[in-house]
């Protein structure tokens, strides 16, 4: 059988514009809540107005009597769920809040659900329930409860890791710092709020709901509703952002599906913005203590990173922030440890760079503080502690162009001109100016995915996998990879995705979706090409007849002998000769265990920030952000840049803006709307520059793709905080940094 080359063709690497762009800007793209099946009821749930206690009374009759209301579902009459909502059917799942009882565990928890003929009637029915509570004092701050030991802070994340001898490292240090950083609770707030339209047909279920993990979600719903996953059709063609919050089924979605079964009619539930603050995940608060030491040459003797992080009273997921200190800087000793605190808040979950974002924020500030204490330029300090192999394990990196990121970022930014002393730079309009930097770092995991490819007689093809376009551009990037895999121009390839009845596209998380789903599509295309090769080399009329020992490559709808453009055959001709109307291939992708065992695989980057601070009023503005990233092969530079920019803006948001504020009495979130839960506006984002440093990584996966979705946050938060210090001489160790912090410091 002939060999076929795994190669990138002319499609990958192009800055192709979004294939779904026109549909989106013209309103043709159908998001979950845009569906209105015949006979549909509207669901509205009542969010708990307290954070801890029990629901003592609901005015059920008043709600039921409201015109248009058809069902009022409370813990008292909630239809049975065949599967246990307290169990965890998959590795990535949480206990689901579905009116198990009248206990309130956090503000915003669903405590009743109303169905009605109109959204207005359901909304009013929910209001008429007028809950009365027996409230207990809520615990919403990290000091409000005793810490507990954690084994697995995040999915698969280790709780405590020690490399080397931290005590010896502390003792050996010529210079040390001991600093504690606080990060607040943050909420994903994807532009599209969570929504579901659920329709039952006997035991068959159709769901329109945004999902970052179609197959996994179906498995969870199948467990809960006692049906086969194969009997669920989940449609998720577009997500208006996910950021980790749409990977795991949550209480409100499950309640709506249950209500649809009860009512025997389709049901739609679409969360309000306020309802996005509670039952659908968030990034929990952390307090991180970093004790770092270095010797007289500025080489780290110890990184000691302890995290105290919030979780709910009924789950364990928390920010595994300390793990950010594993794997980045060379140090003779590295210790990362976690403790949890149970609070009366919704369960935190994966939120864009879960663990890494908070951990990097603290680590990069601590590195800056130590560099300053040791009298070494922050960039030089990082270079002195550059890890050539993974610290602790000694594993080689599958690829690591971080040195080049530092160099290219520093060059573009002009870092060499940075004065060491803080508070010495001024803009012409009298603002304090500061420069800071941070290293970006994010693992490159892969999940498992499958795909199918069908080549038709006319030379066009359909490639299929149940992937997820969260706005990151999967419709485009996956199609580019698919087209290369099957050797066709992009416009001859139809991609089908976002549907659970297709082959499992894996999880769109961990920045691993392009590599995983893309890998499966590429391999399915490759399977078709292999079959074509076999056919052609056995067809006496084919120019490739008898070339069975040569290496073939597929390009532009033709099969060729590698390196010999003159000798080839068109796909359509091969099929015609074989009398086939179509040819189907299948593929899959996952990472062989041996590769994970032998190599450390990460994306890297360097972020440089310039801030201006008003000397009297303390107002901070980021004026420039330059990020240079090495993330394996870049499939689509336009989309990758946009992802990296989005991450950097998220980092800016983390550094200066985002925080949910709990009312101490009720435990409710006071700023549960986008007027007061602050994210940057366009005018806050200036001078953004992204540089991508290409890496040829033969180990990370067959396509050499790492991820770009999350890394942009890491490095950026610290870079901005460090720049604020450099501008003002004031070190703020609590995020977000605000003008009150700088005023207070004077």
């Amino acid at each position, binding site marked *: 059988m002939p060999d076929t080359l795994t190669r990138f063709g002319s499609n990958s690497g192009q800055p192709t514009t979004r294939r779904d762009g026109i549909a989106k800007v013209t309103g043709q793209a159908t998001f979950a809540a845009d569906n209105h099946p015949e006979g549909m009821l509207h669901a509205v749930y009542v969010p708990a107005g307290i954070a801890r206690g029990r629901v003592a009374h609901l005015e059920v009759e008043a709600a039921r009597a409201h015109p248009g209301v058809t069902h009022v579902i409370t813990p008292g009459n909630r239809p049975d769920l065949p599967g246990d909502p307290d169990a965890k059917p998959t590795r990535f799942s949480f206990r689901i809040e579905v009116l198990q009882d009248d206990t309130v565990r956090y503000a915003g928890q669903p405590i009743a659900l109303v169905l009605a003929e109109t959204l207005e009637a359901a909304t009013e029915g929910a209001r008429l329930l007028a809950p009365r509570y027996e409230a207990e004092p809520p615990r919403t701050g990290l000091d409000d409860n005793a810490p507990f030991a954690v084994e697995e802070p995040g999915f698969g994340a280790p709780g405590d890791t020690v490399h080397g001898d931290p005590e010896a490292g502390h003792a050996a240090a010529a210079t040390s710092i001991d600093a504690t950083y606080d990060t607040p609770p943050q909420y994903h707030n994807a532009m599209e709020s969570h929504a579901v339209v659920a329709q039952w047909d006997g035991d068959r279920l159709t769901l329109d709901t945004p999902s970052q993990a179609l197959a996994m979600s179906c498995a969870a719903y199948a467990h809960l509703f006692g049906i086969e996953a194969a009997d669920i059709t989940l449609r998720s063609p577009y997500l208006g952002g996910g950021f980790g919050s749409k990977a795991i089924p949550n209480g409100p979605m499950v309640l709506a599906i249950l209500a649809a079964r009860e009512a025997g009619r389709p049901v739609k539930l679409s969360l309000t913005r306020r309802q996005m603050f509670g039952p659908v995940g968030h990034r929990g608060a952390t307090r991180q203590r970093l004790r770092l030491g270095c010797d007289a040459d500025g080489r780290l003797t110890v990184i000691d990173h302890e995290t105290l992080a919030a979780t709910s009273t009924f789950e364990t997921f928390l920010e595994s922030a300390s793990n950010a200190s594993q794997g980045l800087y060379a140090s003779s000793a590295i210790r990362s440890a976690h403790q949890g605190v149970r609070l009366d808040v919704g369960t935190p979950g994966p939120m864009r760079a879960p663990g890494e974002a908070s951990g990097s924020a603290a680590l990069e500030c601590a590195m800056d503080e130590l560099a300053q204490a040791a009298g070494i330029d922050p960039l030089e300090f990082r270079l002195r502690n550059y890890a050539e192999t993974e610290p602790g394990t000694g594993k080689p990196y599958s690829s690591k162009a971080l040195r080049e990121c530092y160099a290219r970022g520093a060059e573009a930014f002009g870092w060499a001109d940075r004065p060491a002393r803080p508070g010495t730079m001024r803009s012409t*309009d009298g603002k304090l100016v500061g420069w800071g930097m941070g290293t970006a770092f994010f693992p490159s995991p892969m999940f498992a995915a499958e795909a199918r490819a069908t080549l038709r007689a006319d030379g066009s093809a359909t490639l299929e996998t149940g992937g997820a376009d969260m706005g990151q551009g999967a419709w485009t990037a996956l199609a580019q990879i698919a087209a290369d895999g099957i050797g066709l121009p992009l416009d001859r390839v139809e991609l089908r995705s976002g549907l659970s009845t297709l082959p499992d596209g894996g999880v769109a998380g961990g920045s691993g979706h392009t590599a995983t789903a893309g890998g499966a599509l590429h391999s399915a295309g490759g399977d078709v090409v292999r079959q074509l090769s076999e056919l052609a080399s056995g067809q006496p009329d084919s120019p490739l007849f008898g070339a069975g020992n040569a290496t073939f490559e597929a390009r532009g709808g033709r099969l060729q002998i590698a390196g010999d453009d003159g000798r080839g055959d068109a796909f359509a001709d091969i099929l015609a000769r074989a009398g086939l109307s179509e040819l189907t291939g299948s593929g899959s992708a996952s990472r062989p265990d041996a590769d994970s065992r032998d190599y450390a695989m990460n994306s890297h980057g360097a972020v440089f920030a*310039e801030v201006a601070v008003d000397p009297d*009023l303390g107002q901070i*503005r980021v004026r420039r952000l330059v990020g240079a990233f090495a993330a394996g092969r870049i499939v689509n530079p336009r989309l990758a840049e946009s992802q990296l920019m989005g991450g950097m803006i998220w980092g800016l948001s983390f550094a200066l803006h985002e925080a949910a504020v709990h009312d101490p009495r009720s435990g409710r979130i*006071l700023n549960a709307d986008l007027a007061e839960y*602050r994210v940057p506006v366009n*005018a806050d984002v200036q001078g953004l520059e992204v540089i991508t440093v290409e890496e040829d990584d033969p180990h990370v996966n067959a396509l050499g793709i790492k991820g770009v979705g999350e890394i942009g946050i890491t490095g950026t938060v610290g870079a901005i905080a460090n720049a604020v210090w450099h501008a003002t001489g004031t070190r703020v160790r609590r995020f977000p940094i605000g*003008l009150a912090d700088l005023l207070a410091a004077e």
Partner: protein
Amino acid sequence: MKPFDFVQPRSARDAVAQWGPDAAYLGGGTNLVDLMKTGALQPARVIDVTRLPGLDRIEVAADGAVRIGALVRNADLARDADFAVRAPMVAEALLAGASGQLRNAATLGGNLMQHTRCPYFMEPDAACNRRAPGTGCDAIGGAWDNAAILGHAPSCIATNPSDLCVPLAALDAVVEVEGPDGARDIALEELHRLPGDAPERETTLAPGELIVALRLPAEAAAFAGHARYLKVRERTSYAFALVSAAAAMRLEGGRIAEARLALGAVAAKPWRARTAEKMLAGQPPGPDLFARAAEAALAGAAPAEGNGWKIDLARRTAARALAAAAAGTPERMPALPASPFSLSEDLSHA
């Protein structure tokens, strides 16, 4: 939301006649509707006044006074070139408020009458004397640190959030109202009330009184050459002020002939700083003078809920606004909304 009657009267008199105890006038709805959605306000009748004829005009009288109809949209007023020439700091304040979309919808009357952004007022389940008299104040002992620092009371520590009202108070604007008992004028400075022991009475409008117009006296234009609005907040746009200041002066022979200063987001009403104005009058402009005037403007300030930083910030903001006003109104409106970054162009990184 709770069901309600909806009426669309075609004359101001009819609008007033439709008024009843649980009624609310509806302008652009950007504030009222939000509060109805959360359930903080639950009017039984909503009287849409946006169809009232003749209230959407900006007119300049022979004496130079400007009369602005209550239905003029915030965006239209801010972008009216004649108006901006007469009252640049009002235009600057308007453009510093909310977002382009909101300013397109928001009416003048609605902006003057917008409610506090205290989260405990906006949350129907919280105790709030302003929204539900006698229930208490959850903001005290709460977690909102953008509360008042002037004129607050144990009953209420809310602030008035309007940017527009701050320069209007400084410029002696007058509100024209029509009500069940006929028409009358109210000085803008008298429109909003400090809480005292009746925070539920947010304004001095009598029940059923409808704002029909606002008058800016002719004298306002005399300040046009030296007038600035400065708004301080964490993000560049789409955020309410932590503190703001409207400062204006008439300079004659190198001295301040007359000055105006008002602060925003510090009290339940726009805070006119008359003592400071008197200190400034007759003096040559300069940083020391502005610092002393700012000090005087904050006399009597007291933190509520750990927001002492706001007092300091307000003082500095007032001084900076005065300095910016003394430097002169720029020819063109800055590209970005009023902030410490829009006061002077920075050329170091073009």
